[in-house]
Structure formats: C-alpha cells, structure tokens
C-alpha cells in the first residue's frame, strides 16, 4: 500500500508542481498525471455550483410576485422591528474563532505525519508527542484562564 507514495518517474516539468507521475494504479491505468486526476474534482465543484445557481434562478423566476411594504419588513415575531441586527455581539464567539484558528493549524500539521507515520519512524513519533504535549498544555491554560467559559 505504501508503494503509492514512491515516485516512478521523478522528472519534473519546468513548473515543478505535481505534474510527475506516481505509481498509483489509477494514474497508470489512465496514463495521466496527478494534476490531471484532479480535473473531474474541479469539474464537480463547478457543476455543483451551477446546479445551485439554477435552483436560485428558478426560485426567483417562478415564484409569485405580490410584494407589499409589510412583507418587506424584517421579521420579528410580528412586532415592529427594533433597531438593526448590525450590532456588537458577545466576545465569546470571537474567542472561539481565535482558538479554532490556533488548533486547526496544529491539526493540519498532524495530517502529513499521520499519513507517513510508518516510514518516518520513532524520531518523528517522539517529536509529535512533544508537539501534542505542548498543544494540550495550551488547551489547559486556555480552559484555566476562562477562555472557553460560557455562562
């Protein structure tokens, strides 16, 4: 299974970005490069958004149009709307977002290690354990400081 990640042909093109061929069975069968194997993926993303756009256009085109001033007001359970929604909101959401960025970047660091773990061996494993201990220390500090407190 790990043969997947070995290069057969290490010749890079002049841009040097992922155009070389792996010994992945699928790529060999189709005789395509890694970059070309992403083409259907990109196609599906575009296709998904086109379908969603068609839904949006149909919704605006087919729906009835009997607009009145009352319908156009902001919904507030039948009461007169008070002010706007463009107000300041609780700082706790902001704290969660900042913590998320820190931890998410650390998760991203773990992915390449996890995939290549058996080849990287003991040294990489110990370094990753040290990294995880620092990560947990950070989490402990944040909880003790009350950074994730919701009352």
């Amino acid at each position, binding site marked *: 299974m790990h043969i997947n990640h070995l290069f057969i042909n290490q010749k890079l093109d002049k841009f040097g970005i992922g155009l070389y061929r792996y010994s992945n069975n699928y790529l060999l069968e189709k005789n395509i490069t890694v970059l070309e194997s992403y083409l259907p993926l990109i196609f599906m993303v575009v296709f998904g958004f086109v379908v969603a756009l068609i839904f949006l256009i149909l919704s605006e085109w087919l729906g009835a149009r009997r607009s009145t001033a009352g319908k156009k007001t902001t919904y507030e359970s039948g009461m007169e709307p008070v002010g706007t929604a463009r107000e300041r909101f609780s700082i706790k959401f902001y704290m969660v977002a900042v913590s998320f960025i820190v931890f998410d970047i650390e998760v991203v660091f773990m992915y390449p290690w996890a995939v290549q773990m058996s080849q990287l061996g003991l040294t990489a494993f110990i370094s990753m354990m040290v990294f995880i201990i620092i990560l947990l220390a950070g989490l402990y500090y944040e*909880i003790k400081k009350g950074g994730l407190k919701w009352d």
Partner: protein
Amino acid sequence: MPEIGWILVEAGVKAVFIVILILSAAAVSVYAERRVSAIIQLRLGPNRVGPFGLLQPIADVFKLFWKEDVVPKAADMGFHRLAPVISLGIAIAVYAVIPFAHYIEIGGTKYYFGIAPNVNIGLLYILAMTSVSVYGITLAGWSSNNKYSLFGGLRSSAQMISYELSMGLSLIGVLMITGTLSLNEIVLQQSGWGWNVFVQPLGFIIFLVSSFAETNRTPFDLPEAEPELVGGFNTEYSGMKFGMFFLAEYANMATASAFIVLVYFGGWQIPFDIGLGAGSIALALVQFAWFLAKVIFFILFFIWVRWTVPRFRYDQLMNLGWKVLLPLAILNIVITGVWIMIFG
C-alpha cells in the same frame, strides 16, 4: 490530449447521475424523517399524496418553487442570494470523491463508481469542503439583517468550527493505520470484516458525535432552536431559497452517513465471497446496494436520534466539544501511535 477530454465526458455523465441521486436521496430522507418521527410520536405523518404519502416530497418541491420569494428590505441582496448557493453547491460538490462501488470493466477500460474516488486527497477534500459550508450558514445569518438570523448564524459557525477540530483529529487515528488519504484506498484496505471501527472504536464515537454537530442535527440543532430563534439562520428565507438550505441539510446528512460508512464500516467492500468476477456489472451493483444499505442505516440512525434526544444547552455544547471530545481525540492519536510503534 484526447484522454483528458474523455475523462471530462465521463465525469459529466457521472455528475448528472450523482446529482439526481443526491436530490432524490434528500427528498426520500425528508419523507423518511416525517414518517419515522410520526411513528415515534404515535402520529400518522404524511399519508395523503400518493400511496403512503410517497409523493409528498415531490409536492413539497413544486410548492416551494411556486412560493413567493420574499426578501426583506434591510437585507444585503448579494450575500442573501449567495448564501443558499454556497450551501447547496458545496453539498453537491462533496460527492466528487465518494466511491459508490469499485469499478466495472468494459472493453479493457475500467469505469469507477464515483467522479474521482481515486484522487489522493479524498478525505482532506471532504473536510475542506465541509469547512467551506460554514460560510453559507454564516453569510445567511449575517446578510438577513435580522436578529434571530444573526444569532443563529453566529451559534452555528461557532459550533461547526469547534466540532471540526475533534472531527479532524478523530480521523488522524484512521490515517495512521491506513497511511493514505484516498477514499477508495481506505475502503480497499478494509476487506472482509477488517472494518476500521474495530481498531478505532474511540475515534469512531468522537467522529459520530462531531458529525451530528457538523450537520446541525439534534441534539446539536441550536442554530435553529425554534422556541428561541424562530428558524435560526434561515428565518428570512422563503420559497426555494429556503428549500435549498433544506436540501443541503439532508444532503449533508447523507454525506456524513456515507463518510462514516467509507472510513469506518468498509464502504462498498462485501465481507464474503459471492462468486462474481471483479469488474463485472453484477458485482458492482451488489457492492452499490451493500454500500447504500449501510448509508440508509446511518441516515435512519440520524433520524432516530433526532426524535429521541433533547437539545443541549449552549454552554454544554461548547464544553462537550472543547473539554471532552478534543482531549479524547488527542488521546486516541496517542494510543494509536504507541500501539503502532510497539506492535508495528
């Protein structure tokens, strides 16, 4: 290169089939949800349109299309339109990497069941796309310029990004064992009864709980807690724009079920030999049916949980995500790592 042209044609034909499959799966899930909830609550549920009410979802779609599309004057028109497109577009695009069965071989060419199931970043792609879908909900909440929507959107984004961490971390245990990000490769390694759930039980439970939170389903449906927030982020949406969020929600539920089945429950691999040759159409169809049966099981599980478990309070939800699931997911990585280091 003509080969690339054929790849795109193949992808186009498959994409049409998959979109039809997703939309009908979403419609059937809505029907199943209404019927199952009715059974649980000792009601009848929709039973008037067609036999057993089976045509109800189709009637609903037509109704939504012809409903007036009301947009409040205070809303930001551009982003208000963009939000449902992001939600539904991403919900469809995620299916690009999901393998529905292995392949059929016609005239020496292998046709794989899926748009790009062999791409070497499959698992990462699904995680990335589900992160983008947070934008749809956040933008919907903000652009409506309605306080209910804003709170629904804020809650939802905070919840989704919190549980994304434990979701991503719980998958690392599987990656350490399989050593690949390609979904077809992960499925191939789970032949027989060698399902990842048996070697990663803790990771599976963390992933399951996180996927409930990611899809905004009960017990984590605070973004649209009806008694407090009316409809949450979609309060100011009507007509098919509302329907798009609705479809996306059910498509995401199906995606989460498919993802669980692929990563932890052997995907399309049939655990016993049924005597059909590799590459034959019959075998591919049996694999597809087997995969679909497992996905339907998990969709029904999602529905069952929704109508059985009450909603969390917001501080409980945040505590569970940050103080329980996140350390547990890291513990899972350490245990798996030590195990692999000692026993190879």
